[in-house]
């Protein structure tokens, strides 16, 4: 087949496919058909052009000289002299003052960028948890110890703050005897109910996976792994800090309550995180 023929066929297909696209649209549309017809419509036209270029053009290779782009020294000097006439260059003081004014103006104009966000203040150091706050599930219902079977895992929030991104907490019930919590936390896990921040201390993803056989919490983002029995210390992956533990107790009606906020900032680290007392409100 000659090149003309091929081009004719390609263009013919392209036209038919374009008409098909219109028809498909009018009939209500269908993604796969639209994709294929569009491919044929574009491809037919493209193929026609490529065949045309390859077969019907008699383009002989040509050679073009490439000269260095650098201007002659005299032209450079002339350009520089034009750029820096004496009337401007000799007024050094005014020039410097001008530069200072421009810099000051630039800073003044950049300042409104601060409107883009609030000062961090103490936001990174605290969550919505406070002493006496009941633990509620995603449905807002408070959680009773009796509701939790062994190895049960629940995502809980402070009452009135369901869905709170930095207060999200994992509540897990284990055998009290298995727990080996750090010193001073003996009474933080009544009846084996232990609660840790769900925000990964590495890059802040929800620590969404629980491996019951070795009581490990896993973050699906970067595979940081935390030991639930030992105060959620990291055992694998890039995280270096344990998940902060929420101190719990049981109130008179049998509901789980927090006895305070997390002792450390939750989530990913930041440079001044050890300076909780210095951050202003």
């Amino acid at each position: 087949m000659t090149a003309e023929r091929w081009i004719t066929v390609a263009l013919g297909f392209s036209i038919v496919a374009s008409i098909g696209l219109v028809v498909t649209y009018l009939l209500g549309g269908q993604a796969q058909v639209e994709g294929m017809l569009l491919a044929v419509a574009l491809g037919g036209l493209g193929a026609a052009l490529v065949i045309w270029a390859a077969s019907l053009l008699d383009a002989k290779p040509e050679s073009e000289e490439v000269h260095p782009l650098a201007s002659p020294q005299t032209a450079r000097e002339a350009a520089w002299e034009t750029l820096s006439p004496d009337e401007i260059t000799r007024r050094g003081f005014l020039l410097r003052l001008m530069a200072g004014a421009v810099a000051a103006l630039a800073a003044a104009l950049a300042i409104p960028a601060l409107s883009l966000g609030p000062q961090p203040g103490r936001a990174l150091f605290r969550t919505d948890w406070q002493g006496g706050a009941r633990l509620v599930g995603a449905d807002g219902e408070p959680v009773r110890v009796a509701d939790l079977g062994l190895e049960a895992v629940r995502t809980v929030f402070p009452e009135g703050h369901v869905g709170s991104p930095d207060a999200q907490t994992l509540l897990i019930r284990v055998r009290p005897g298995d727990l080996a919590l750090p010193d001073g936390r003996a009474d933080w896990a009544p009846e084996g109910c232990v609660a840790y921040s769900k925000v990964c201390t590495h890059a802040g993803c929800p620590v969404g996976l629980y491996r019951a056989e070795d009581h490990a919490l896993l973050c699906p983002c970067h595979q940081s792994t935390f030991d639930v029995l030992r105060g959620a210390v990291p055992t694998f992956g890039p995280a270096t800090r344990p998940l902060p533990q929420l101190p719990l107790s049981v109130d008179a009606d049998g509901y789980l309550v927090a006895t305070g906020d997390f002792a450390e900032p939750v989530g990913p680290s930041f440079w001044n995180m050890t300076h909780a007392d210095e951050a202003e409100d």
Partner: protein
Amino acid sequence: MLRWFDDRLGLASFARSGLRKVFPDHWTFLLGEIALFCFVVLLLTGIFLTLFYVPDGTPVTYEGPYLPLHGQQVSAAYRSVLELSFEVQAGLVMRQVHHWAALVFLAAITVHMLRIFFTGAFRRPRELNWLVGIGLLTLALAMGITGYSLPDDLLSGTGLRILYSAALSIPFVGPYLAFLLFGGEFPTETIVSRLFVFHVMLLPALLIGGILTHLAILWRQKHTQWPGPGRTEHNVVGKPFWPSQVLKSTGLMLLTAAVLALMGGLLQINPIWTYGPFDATTVSAPAQPDWYVGWLDGALRLFPPFEPTILGITIPSPFIPGVLIPAAAFTVMALWPFIEARLTHDRADHQLLERPRDAPLRSAIGVTGLTFFVILTLAAGNDVAAIIFNVPVETLTNALRVAIVVVPPLAGLLTWRICRELRRRDVERAAGKRGGSVRLRRNAEGGFEEIEQ
């Protein structure tokens, strides 16, 4: 008509020389063109999407035709993307073509850059365009990340969260910077509207300006070329811009668009309705980003648990792999032409490309960097690979931690040896040592060729 314009603009001689401009003919020269054509497809489909997308993080109740999400709280942005996918006619094809075009855009840029690197096309006088190219790569990555996050689905929200944590990790300025970028502590409702402004206004404006600069510099400096008969360091041999190159390039543009249309029509991509809307308390597992971000995610996964506090200043663990290593990688890439010129003392203008073997050191360093990138990209899939190969993810991660330190230098060393060996053979062949039975003769073009006995 033409006279009317020329009377007013006087462009005839300029047009004539422009139309005769010479374009060297080699398939590797098409890689950059493919990137350009992907960008054209991205602009056209992107304009369509912009007309339907709602950049609004406000929660609304979904009541559209996709029943599994019926009655769920989603953001207005997420709802608008569902509408685009299920209710706007041709919307799904446009969305999928746009996403595929973005993936191919970044891939074409990457391969184009590798071609420029391994052939030494960045050497003087083209260092400037190499720098513009690095800027374009950075902008394209930013376009990818901002665009990918616009649907406000669970997967992209997780990506944004990691981005926030990386910003937060920068010493001294991190918390302020993260709060300024996101408008407060993550997650915020304002972030999608900000990403939208970046994705459809600021970044495209910069990208278009950058691409035009890239092409203008190319036009001014002319193309490089492979060595061959009649080709020297002071000329460029090829076909004229018009009609040959115009027809061929326009054809290639349409063929690129055709392939993207086929992919967008037949290959499902980013089905956000299966991921669900963003919810700060849930996460999907496994969670993989688009391919071009994989290396950054992989670096975060492989980095050891290292978070020193020095004089009360904590260096958060995402800082080194998430901020410092990428910044260093881009700095070295940007400065490479100058580093190489200093190492080789080669400060002459070049028109002729080199084969990778002709510059063993450059090739070795390029392969080292490429291997580093590939291993990090693989590491971003360590959880998926662990499931496929039924190996504990810990074992796989530890193996990759060793590999990222050991394999890239070895690959570089191997490349260096191979380049040297290939060059030695070239020299031997040219000298006719191969069994002593090779004879050379000068051919009509002025080159040399062997006479087989």
